[in-house]
Every structure is written in C-alpha cells, then in structure tokens.
C-alpha cells in the first residue's frame, strides 16, 4: 500500500508550467517537439530486425519510421532516468508490482495485473499510432 504520510510532491500547476517552459526551450534550441509513441515503433523495428532484417527493410511503416535511435528515443530513455533520480533522491522510489488502487479492487495477484497491463499496452499503442499521437 502507498504510504499515506508520503509528501504530495510539487504542485501540478508549477511542475506543469515548468514542463511547458522545457518544451518551449526544446523547440527554441533544437527545433524538437516532444513525443513518445514513435519511439515504441522504432524500438519494435529494432527488435524485429534482429530476427529478420530483410522483412523489416521491406515494411512500409518501418520505411516511414526508420528503426533507429534518434532524439526522441533518447528523450524517452531520459524520462526513466529523470524519474529514477527524482524518486531516489526524495525517498519516494518504491518497488511495486501491483498499484495500490488496483490491489484494493482486484487483489494482490501480480500475474493478473501483468496480463491486463500487457493487453492494455497493446491496445493503447495501436490506438495511439492510429491517431498519429
């Protein structure tokens, strides 16, 4: 269960506004607009290429979104490290395989959560790519 005493963290308005500034500076200094879901396509292509390079090379979607490590790929990996730094330096890092809200409704079974999260991930990414977002 989540520690009830845990601090609420920064105001979402403040952190949100700072994130807005970060995006503005990113566009200003590098011309890059942020995103994340293209990175999942590129990574899927990189993994598939390990098994069948020729097939991936012929797939139309991987010609459009080349399987490579680019600005956004590094951005997405950076999110992991940024969160790791913020959580370990504020003692809010917690190894948890089943979220608190999930557990109170569906119980502590890790396998059940794993299956639903995996299937949810498939559906969410398919939709995100369809919407081009």
């Amino acid at each position, binding site marked *: 269960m989540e520690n009830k005493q845990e601090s609420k963290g920064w105001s979402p308005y403040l952190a949100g506004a700072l994130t807005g500034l970060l*995006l503005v500076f990113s566009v200003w200094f590098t011309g890059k607009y942020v995103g994340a879901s293209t990175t999942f*396509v590129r990574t899927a292509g990189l993994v598939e290429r390990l098994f069948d390079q020729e097939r991936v090379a012929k797939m139309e979607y991987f010609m459009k979104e080349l399987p490579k490590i680019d600005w956004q790929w590094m951005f997405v990996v950076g999110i992991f490290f940024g969160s790791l730094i913020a959580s370990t330096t504020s003692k809010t890092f917690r190894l948890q395989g089943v979220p608190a809200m999930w557990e109170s409704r569906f119980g502590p079974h890790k396998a059940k959560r794993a299956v639903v999260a995996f299937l949810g991930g498939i559906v969410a990414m398919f939709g995100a790519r369809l919407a081009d977002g």
Partner: protein
Amino acid sequence: MIKELIYGCVTGILFGFLLQKSRVIRYDRQLGALRLIDMTIVKYMFSTILVAMVGVYLLKDLGIVKLSIKSTVLGGNIIGGLIFGFGWGFLGYCPATSLGALGEGRWDAVWGILGMLTGAAIFAEKFPLLKTSVLKWGVYGKITIPEVLGVNHWIIIVLFVIGGLFLFRWFEKKGL
C-alpha cells in the same frame, strides 16, 4: 548528431524529473483522472499546454521557430483516440509515463512497455491495410483552429488560457 542525442536525453531527464516530482506518473493518479476523482494529471497537462502554447507562438511570431503541425485525419484521430483510451484504462500508464513509472520502481510498467512494443509491431503489420481505409477518412491536412476560424491565433490562445484558469478554479473549488 551526437549533440542532438544528448539534447534529447537531457530534455527527457528534466521531463522525467518533473513528472516524478508532481506524482503524475502513477497508476493511481492516471486512473484517478479517468475515474474523475483526481484531476492532478489534468492540472499538470493543461498547465504545460498553456505555457507551451504561449511560448511557442511567441517564438513563431518572432520568426525564431517553426510550428510542427500534425495532419488532421478524423478517421485515425477519432477511432485511434477511442482505442487508445480503452487501452489506457487497462494499463494505467501512457507511452511516456510508463518509462517514468518504471524509474520510480513501479515495475508493473514493464508489462505495459512490452505490450506497447507489441502493439506498435502489430500496427506496423496492419499499416498497409489501415492506410487505404481508416486513414483515408476525413483527411483535412495540416490545419489549426485559428486558420479554420479565420481569426488571429492570439484570440484563440487567450480564450484557451482564460478557459484553463476557470477550469483550474473549478477543480480547486470541488477539491478534485
């Protein structure tokens, strides 16, 4: 090229830091928003959008940056959005926040990340079919709200900011 990758990583680290500090990457917060009982992530996202909207348009008017407008394809946008929302409700993380959640130890995000990679692979397989169907419905190209309405973009920006502030005030009043 290397410089570009470093910029990407640094931007990501700062973004991940802010996401974690405001506690918006947790399953409970994302589901809280979808269940309309905790608007923290909406406050965060809308604050980001308002600041970025003003900043980017200001830089554009000064001739410093170019906009990057995605094409409006109603078929893909609407159907894709509905499918995304459905999956998001089950997963409880979105593509970017799944990495952040993993960073603060919420390792059920791993299943979500593997699922999303699979979903991306499936989409790539089905793309030739989708391209000639759903993605051909309601294609409007790179349009923006001010262009469609034929008004100056600052009118729309000011309206969005005012609307956002009223929304925030309402959230705080209701204790969301």
